[in-house]
């Protein structure tokens, strides 16, 4: 599914956080959205997810109809709740749940829990989990909806490095296998460079560049957008590595 954002505006009260933004995300690709704090990344994701009022148009495969299956994972995730992991992930399939839960729903949940290594936590309450475990649960919830469009707002911010890699591999794998369109907000530019097909760089609510990792993650962009002096090198597998040197 191709997502076309045209002239998007988002405002919080009197402040306009996105003054007019155009962006296209292609089916089967992972688009990483990066940018400094307060640059409007989350607002963009929320507007596409339909949880935030906005101006301009957002089209899905050319139609304004929002697909029923959006896997949205917000940045702020609930914690103090007496819901089990199983119930939380089931909620991802909200539109299809009856009072009695069907075998198809339970199977879908089992598949996702399995992939994310959460089977052992299935009967635990959310409130008993660590922040990183909760993050995995909400990713599982987003995937359990069998989405056509995956919107992940900082999905790996609380994870250890091994889970960061694992989650990004799962996201990339699901995107390829099921032909999803995936938008993921990331803070770690190296993770973005390693896993994204395309990178959208935001600054003060505007898209400053959009292109391949090699074309976007380079010292001049890092200096102008993040105000950080950086050096580029190369990983053994040929992926670019950005090393931040000092704040400008």
């Amino acid at each position, binding site marked *: 599914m191709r997502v076309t954002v045209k002239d998007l505006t988002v405002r919080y009260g009197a402040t306009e956080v996105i003054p007019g933004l155009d962006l296209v995300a292609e089916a089967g690709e992972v688009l990483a959205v990066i940018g400094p704090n307060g640059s409007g990344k989350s607002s963009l994701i929320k507007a596409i997810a339909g949880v935030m009022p906005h101006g301009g148009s957002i089209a899905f495969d050319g139609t304004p109809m929002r697909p029923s299956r959006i896997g949205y994972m917000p940045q702020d995730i609930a914690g103090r709740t*007496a819901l089990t992991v199983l119930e939380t992930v089931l909620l991802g399939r909200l539109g299809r749940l009856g009072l009695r839960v069907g075998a198809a729903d339970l199977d879908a949940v089992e598949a996702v829990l399995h*992939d994310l*290594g959460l089977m052992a936590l299935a009967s635990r*309450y959310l409130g008993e989990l660590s922040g990183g475990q909760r993050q995995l649960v*909400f990713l599982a919830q987003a995937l359990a909806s069998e989405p056509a469009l995956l919107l992940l707002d900082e999905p790996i911010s609380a994870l250890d490095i091994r889970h960061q890699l*694992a989650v990004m591999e799962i996201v990339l*794998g699901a995107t390829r296998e099921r032909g999803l369109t995936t938008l993921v907000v990331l803070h770690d530019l190296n993770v973005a460079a390693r896993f994204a097909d395309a990178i959208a760089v935001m600054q003060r609510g505007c898209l400053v560049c959009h292109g391949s990792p090699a074309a976007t993650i380079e010292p001049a962009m890092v200096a102008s957008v993040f105000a950080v002096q950086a050096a580029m090198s190369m990983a053994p597998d040929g992926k670019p590595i950005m090393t931040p040197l000092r704040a400008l």
Partner: protein
Amino acid sequence: MSVDLMRFPRPASLPPSPAERLAAPVPRTASRDVRGRQGEIAQLYAAMAWRRAAVLLFGAACAVLGLVLDVATGPALLSVSDVAASVLGLAQDRTVDAIVWSIRLPTALVALVVGAALGLSGAIMQTILNNPLASSYTLGVSAGAGFGAALVIVLGVMLPVPEAYAIPLMAFLFACLACAGVYGIGSSRDSSPQMLLLAGIALLFLFQALLALLQFVASPEALQQIVFWLFGSLQKASWSKLWIISAVLVLCLPVLVADAWRLTALKLGDERARGLGVDVRRLRLRSFALISALTGVAVAFVGTIGFVGLVAPHIARMLVGEDQRSFLPASALYGALLLSAASIASKTVLPGAIVPIGIVTSLVGVPFFIWLIMRNRRAFW
């Protein structure tokens, strides 16, 4: 500088990483053969469902036991066999019949349905406000009802209804008004749980002040009547009131059944619920309508009985969690059970007398509640 990755092989003891599982999918369908043997999650889900059903059945059984004991006790000190005979229609004595059928049975049944209504409304409130302190008592709905009752008692403001219903009707209307006020003020800006809570607390103080004002100008007789009404009492229970409260409960059921999953989603926060396709504003409005009907009708007939609406959802949450499909019925059942127990206690504490049930609920309920929250190690709500 190159890093030799082979110098740090992954310890064999680590379970396979999620990514490895994805690369070589562990046969997730292996545990599900053609004859439909259930997968691990389906089994877990079935076990959870059974446990919850057992909790509900246990609550229901206790409520029935409470009903029996409630009918068997009272200031008339009838023998249990006389009461049983009367209930079964075998009594020889007409006075026993009169006491059992026109006082004890309706009172005991009203205790159950009022408890259920208060427990249920407290549970809905705690869910839609995402706050374990919310109840009709703490949000000014009961105070509104008390003010409505006092209007009739002190100023004689009456709607054209039979006299027995003048106070309940006004109390009901003011409970609804308080609810509408909480919703109206709370949702004027962003309809967040915090705004709604603040609006509720503001209205609590407003109605308390208005009630105090009426008490200030009231005659000594009217003042006594207000105070007694505020204690809460089951002594005005009757069959017709029982049917009215039951009807409201039954009418609320289909709405709650339809909204159960949406309410559960609301526990994850407004934004998450919206992302899952829930119209949060409408869900809150619908739920507020239910709350005002349930609380209004319960409080109108028996006065302000605090606490049940606060405690019953806490008990339910500890027993079954917050999946609203079992949380709501458990709150109703354990609310009914609590009020039934309080009703029994109110008749047995002082032999031959009946202590107002509102006093008993709080006196017995507070220590119980404190014990409950102290022993709960899962202190995350």
